[in-house]
């Protein structure tokens, strides 16, 4: 019966499209040295500002054209994906672990635990997030791990707020009371009864947060505060593209499209996963 229902509903086009793009981008990033047509760092002044393949003057092997230093744009985007995905996964998982745990505790236990955690969240959210991120990176120093840390430090509240509200709603349900009557301990009930009911939301938020982390990383790269190596990043490419918009629009447009597609895919993928994880919505 279960199999029949899943087969009938299918996986849904949303999940396929978003998941397909993410998988493609992720595989390309992982196997970047194998799939990138050129060395992303190789400069060649003879090849500067080549247009994308369908325009006149394009060179074979440089599908999306080159930037003002003659570096291959497609290869730079593929390699830039590595940092984007590392930041997305690490920062989102860290924010999720901290935020969901605190949210679950606040929502389920209520009382003073809730008051303390909610107050911290309120204070945290009083800072404008982008400014907060720039400030944090300025303090922590640039580099991959401080970018990840900064994003996690800023965004755990997103998880905390949502999961707190959901856990609080679940805790009022009769099945939680039933478990107490049966003699389960508080922590056991929190983990075994309440947690499974908030997992769909955690999954959706986690995916959304990965997209947000990519944007934040791009913004930090854009203002030159992110990873200070020569490795290409999407935000860094966008920043360079902005300078040569009149001579070579593609250096700005393609990374923007890549960024937007990836971020949208993460949020859509999360929503689709949420309905798949939820036995009632499914």
């Amino acid at each position, binding site marked *: *019966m*279960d199999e029949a229902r899943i087969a009938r509903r299918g996986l849904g086009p949303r999940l396929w499209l978003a998941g397909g793009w993410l998988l493609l981008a992720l595989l390309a990033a992982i196997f970047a040295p194998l799939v990138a047509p050129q060395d992303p760092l190789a400069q060649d002044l003879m090849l500067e500002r080549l247009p994308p393949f369908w325009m006149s003057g394009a060179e074979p092997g440089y599908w999306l054209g080159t930037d003002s230093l003659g570096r291959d744009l497609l290869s730079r985007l593929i390699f830039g994906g590595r940092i984007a995905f590392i930041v997305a996964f690490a920062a989102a998982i860290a924010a999720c672990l901290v935020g969901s745990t605190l949210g679950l505790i606040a929502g389920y236990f209520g*009382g003073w635990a809730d008051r303390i955690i909610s107050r911290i969240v309120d204070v945290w959210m009083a800072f404008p997030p982008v400014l907060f991120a720039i400030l944090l990176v300025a303090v922590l120093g640039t580099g991959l791990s401080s970018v990840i840390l900064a994003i996690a430090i800023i965004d755990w509240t997103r998880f905390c707020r949502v999961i707190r509200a959901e856990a609080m709603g679940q805790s009022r*349900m*009769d*099945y939680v*009371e*039933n478990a*107490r*009557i*049966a*003699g*389960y301990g508080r922590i056991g009930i929190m983990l*075994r*009864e309440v947690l*499974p*009911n908030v*997992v769909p939301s955690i999954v959706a938020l986690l995916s959304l947060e990965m997209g947000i982390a990519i944007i934040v990383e791009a913004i930090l790269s854009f203002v030159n505060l992110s990873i200070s190596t020569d490795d290409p990043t999407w935000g860094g490419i966008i920043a360079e593209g902005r300078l040569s918009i009149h001579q070579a629009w593609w250096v700005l447009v393609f990374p923007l499209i890549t960024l937007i597609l990836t971020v949208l895919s993460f949020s859509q993928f999360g929503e689709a996963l949420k309905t798949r994880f*939820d*036995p*009632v919505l499914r």
Partner: protein
Amino acid sequence: MSACLDIANLSAVLPNGLRVLRSVSLSVQPGEVRALVGESGAGKTMIGKAVLGVLPSSVRIVEGTMTLEGEDLGRLHPKARRTLIGARTALIPQDPLTALNPSRRIGPQMTDRLVRILGWSTQKADTRIRQLLDEVQIRDPDRVLKSYPHELSGGMRQRVLIAAAFAAEPRLIVADEPTTALDVTVQKQILRLIAELQREHGTAILFVTHDLGVVAKISQKVSVLYAGKVVEEADTAALFASPRHPYTRALMAATPRYTDPFASLKPVDETVLAGLAAEITAADQAWRRPHG
């Protein structure tokens, strides 16, 4: 023989000082069904929750004792109290949908308690659950055990909860309006099932309801509750033959009968309500004096 449940002079207050339970006394003998009847807001659910140890944190017990199977619940260490309540009691709730965890399958939800809390082997628990599902006339246990709660009808869910309540052979079951959320046709079947299982297992039940028709069908004893106060307490047969308290008589007059379908439209008499209000005030004054 000592009572299965004995509540003596139980009072509980809200943070604003309002008494929700007013020196409630009632007892349930082993194997007996006691109905607890009263209108909405009378405090029936509060009494059930007090016994099961799940009162809302805003409600505070200020006097009285509750004795379960000879153990004074108030004197037990909280942990020992939880263990005792978990082993000896069960709840058949009002709303069978919210009483089941929506994201867990029925099977593990039912066996978990036997295995984790009572330490049964998985096989023993599984056999036991299937036996109980058979007793509540679920003919396709495999499907039901694999289902999520929302995949079952309301009547099925309530059967599952009844089976779960009886599975661990509790001595006392609190049934809190177990048929209110169900269709009229299903209500009768569920009521009959509870009565049947109660008789076979010899379980004592504190049966909360606002329906005197149900009281007559299922119980041997009745307590009539008004505004957190027991206003009348009697054998069920005696109560219906000769109700003593005017409020009980008013409730009976308000219960619909086929011979007089409009009777249910009669409100409870003004003078009866005035009398009740005076009774409650007097009780509260008498209660406050010794406490300063």
